[in-house]
């Protein structure tokens, strides 16, 4: 079975931005617009059967979406793909049509981190109510002082 870095460099050499293969958390950083193709390569060449987790990250200069895929067959392993996104209007193609696990994972990332997923079949907030303002997991999020006339400061 190929390593994700080798498989991606062979199949999509232009899309690979950064490869870290040692340390506690190996990952491959790919271009945002190629994420669907990259995920397909992991599924076909590396045996990644399950999308384990979708995480939105806020670093001061950029946003990141981090995907963790799981290979169930022996040797079981997690693969990580990262995508860097600009500070203004972060968006990337949705994986929800490839893995249905991405449906809720991406909705949660939109809800709490404010990253848009183009082509998502049901792009709404999931945990917060529809009229909520802002995305709480962003580092510059301001806590509201009231909600529908209810004081939240006490």
């Amino acid at each position, binding site marked *: 079975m190929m390593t994700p870095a080798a498989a991606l460099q062979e199949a999509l050499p232009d899309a690979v931005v950064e490869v870290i293969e040692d340390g*506690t958390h190996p990952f491959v950083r790919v271009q945002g617009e190629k994420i669907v193709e990259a995920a397909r390569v992991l599924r076909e060449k590396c045996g990644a059967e399950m999308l384990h*987790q979708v995480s939105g990250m806020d670093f001061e200069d950029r946003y990141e979406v981090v995907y963790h895929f*799981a290979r169930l067959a022996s040797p*079981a392993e997690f693969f990580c793909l990262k995508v860097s996104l600009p500070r203004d209007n972060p968006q990337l193609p949705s994986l929800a049509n490839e*893995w*249905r696990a991405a449906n809720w994972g991406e909705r949660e990332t939109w809800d709490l981190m404010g990253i848009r997923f183009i082509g998502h079949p049901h792009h709404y907030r999931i945990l*917060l109510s529809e009229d909520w303002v802002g995305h709480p997991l962003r580092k510059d999020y301001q806590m509201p002082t009231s909600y529908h006339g209810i004081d939240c400061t006490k």
Partner: protein
Amino acid sequence: METIQGVKLNEGERAAPVLPRDIQSDELVFNMGPQHPSTHGVLRLMLRTDGEVVLEAQPLIGNLHRCCEKILENLTYVQGLPYVDRMDYLGAINMEMGLVLPVEKAAGVEVPKRAQYLRVVMCELNRVISHLFAAGQFGLDMGAFTPFLYMFREREEGINVLNEITGGRLLYHYIRYGGVTRDVPKGWIERCLKWCDRVDEHMDEYNSLLTYNHIFLNRTCGVAVLDKETCLDYGVTGPILRAAGVPRDLRKDMPYSCYEDFDFDVPVGPFEKGVAGDSWNRHRQRLREAEESIKIIRQALKNLPEGETQHPKVTRAWKAPAGEAYVASEAPRGEISAYFVSDGGKFPYRMRMRGPSFYNIAVLETCSRGLLIGDLIALMGSVDITLGEVDR
């Protein structure tokens, strides 16, 4: 492919009785929950039904949302630990395990062997208690009240065993970065083993009262089948995935905390009755796993190594150096994992938690189509969700 009133059924799914053609029926949209007794918390399901047949069920979650991840970013490492107990309040120690493992991996902390064994004992104790609760609750949902009381009897004693060592009955705050908070008290090991014997003795009783009860079998066999492909597609893990016939158990596949030292089996469906991935097999899977957990507890207590229970460098004011890690572990309801990123500061920079129930419950959208409303209860009861972990 069989269809019922225009809704395609998954393979192996049972078609609900169709209304005679001359009866006019109307579609009805209504809410099930958030205050419905069988939704196990504050889950709201938006149902579109035709008579008794569910055409569409949409889970609407978030009633219990506290933004656990934001809370963890604003607390020091030690302060953050009790908060994850509140995620899956029925498997609290397993949640703590899910939080500490990636941090320890990123920081390169080697946990003393005795602490690792104690962690295993407590995790498995909590798993047995959680599975007993889930099985009893499922019987209750299916109209069998008595088995619930029998299982709660052993659960209650198990909670007392945990209480004696941690000081908590539901939320324990036992595992700490670099070790565990307390060593075992005097005589505790014997009392714990005695409890293990009791659960083993009563396992046949549970099975004859509930698992092989004819009414229960008719009610759950072949109902709400979740097949392997659907599970993998939706990221469903834990007993549900194993009941569908996938031998995936992180304790075997990617051992953590010395699980490789223990000899235990991974039960995989289908079992004696029903088809792989139906409600009955999910229930049977939990009770079989509880038996295996008892085996692990016995081995761990027998071979409990001597020594420290806490890494000496990891103190109250400890903070992780810059780094990141992703580690998953096996909680009662599936795979709990955390993606941990540290910038070397006082607080974790980011702690992304995966609640297994969050992904398990998403499957309701697909799996509930074409079921009777009564069978939807069987589906929800056998999937066994905790809303604290869905909403985090």
